[in-house]
């Protein structure tokens, strides 16, 4: 542990300020709370929002898991883990079940989260109306007046152009019947996991200087139309080529030897865990 820095890198005042913004965000589900985003040893847009939340919340007894698009071992995840471990000395895990804090880029883990866990999502663009209205002063008014026709209009345009809603990720959601929120670029597959989630979900945008939250057991509904209901991606009849799982979010890969399409769990720790249990059952020693 590097003792040249304060515990968890930040000074106590900074951590308190970020926690204060976080508390306000939890009190108003889905509302974007501005906060004084700090300079970080990684570039803005590389997870600084999530990292600031993690650093402000982490305690000595916490167990941290960091994932980057489902992977525990990508460069980004590894470096964030290194930074937190070097400045706090907390335990790092890859098992979703063991973690108390999970910082994630663009995925919610496959293993259901419980009430003792906090999920922290990194957010590039927190404003769901940004591509409809570029001015922050105007979108703020839209939120205040619950004027969300722009969010539906963007979906309508997709249907008119392509025949269905085409948001691959970051499909807007209505939180607690009040605020429309960008769920960060998680696949549509993960949107339903936010509804009545047992774990607290925090979202941090470092570059855009916003924090927002979904408290446990909050109603989260993905936007849709009566005749075009919201549908998550389906992977019917698909199976993980490594562990044989079904009904999870898959990466689609091309097998270079055969040229065919293969599927593989996107959540690497889930895949390894399943593989291990399959081996244990099969009695491979």
């Amino acid at each position, binding site marked *: 542990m590097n003792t040249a820095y304060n515990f968890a890198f930040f000074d106590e005042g900074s951590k308190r300020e970020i926690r204060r913004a976080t508390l306000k965000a939890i009190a108003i589900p889905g509302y974007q709370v501005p906060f004084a985003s700090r300079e970080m040893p990684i570039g803005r847009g590389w997870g600084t929002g999530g990292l600031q939340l993690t650093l402000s919340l982490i305690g000595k007894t916490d167990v941290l898991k960091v994932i980057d698009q489902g992977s525990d071992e990508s460069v980004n995840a590894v470096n964030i883990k290194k930074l937190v471990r070097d400045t706090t000395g907390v335990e790092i895990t890859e098992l979703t079940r063991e973690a108390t804090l999970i910082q994630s880029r663009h995925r919610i883990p496959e293993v259901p989260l419980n009430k003792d866990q906090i999920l922290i999502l990194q957010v590039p663009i927190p404003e769901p109306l940004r591509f409809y209205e570029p001015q922050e002063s105007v979108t703020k008014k839209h939120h205040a007046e619950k004027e969300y026709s722009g969010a539906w*209009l963007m979906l309508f345009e997709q249907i008119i*152009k392509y025949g269905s809603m085409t948001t691959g990720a970051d499909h807007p959601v209505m939180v607690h019947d009040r605020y429309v929120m960008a769920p960060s670029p998680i696949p549509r597959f993960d949107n339903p996991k936010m509804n009545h989630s047992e774990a607290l979900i925090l979202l941090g945008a470092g570059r855009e200087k916003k924090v927002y939250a979904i408290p446990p057991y909050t109603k989260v509904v993905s936007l849709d139309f009566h005749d075009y209901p919201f549908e998550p991606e389906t992977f019917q009849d698909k199976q993980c080529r490594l562990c044989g799982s079904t009904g999870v979010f898959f990466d689609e890969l091309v097998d270079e030897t055969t040229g065919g399409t293969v599927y593989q769990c996107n959540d690497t720790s889930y895949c390894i865990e399943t593989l291990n249990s399959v081996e244990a059952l099969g009695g491979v020693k």
Partner: protein
Amino acid sequence: MAGFESPVISVKNLSKQFGPGCSNCQGARSENLIKNYCQVCGTVYACRDVSFDVFPGEVLGIVGESGSGKSTLMQCLYFDQDTTNGEAYLAAYQNGEENLFKQSSQQKRYIRNHVMGKVYQNPILGLKMDFSSIGNIAEKLISAGHRKVSLMEERGTELLDKVNIPVHRRKEAPKNFSGGMQQRVQIAKALSNNPPLLLLDEVTTGLDLSVQASVLDLIKGLQRELNISIVLVSHDLGVIRMLADRTMVMLEGRVIEQGLTDQILEDPQHQYTQQLVHSLL
């Protein structure tokens, strides 16, 4: 006819000033003003005590030179600007018992989305230029609470057909359209939720004559067919003569003359109106 008709919109003593006002201008009553401008505090009195009623199916024309307060009046009616003073009552909102200008911003948005339509002089103000034409119409329907794509698509196509936009161009963005086409998309958008009141602010200004004629034709046709009430602002007396049943003449923020359009044009009473009518080429 049984009894008197009640107005669709009734505006009473609408005033709008830009600036704080001072003892020199005494709330626009003073003689020391230069036109409607106070030299001491720099306040501009854009609209002063404007009152009028519009009845079902009626077209009210408003004429006046530039700077006379026509557009400010329209912006106040559509809540694009706050009013300084005055009241307005809409028959379609709370039975005409609530002053519109006293409502919360959410309620004002509701009124805009449900019972009014507006066509701006500049299509950039009224349309989302990067969204499809049919999407622009859907926007108004979505904000009025519609959540069914097939219904909105049908309504949008029907309206675009009505304003003579070819069906195969309905998915195109208005930024690719000519000025006249953009104006027609705006009209289709304003009409999408069957508003009882339509506000038209200089709709034909800047269009060439043949396009002007077709846009005017369209408005006249739609107005007869759907029996909507229209408040029409223009400085073009030809447009007023063709469309308006009644006309108000504004000068320096005040209504200086009003009456039947023919009457105003044939027998103007006020000196300014006389000058205006006689300068018609």
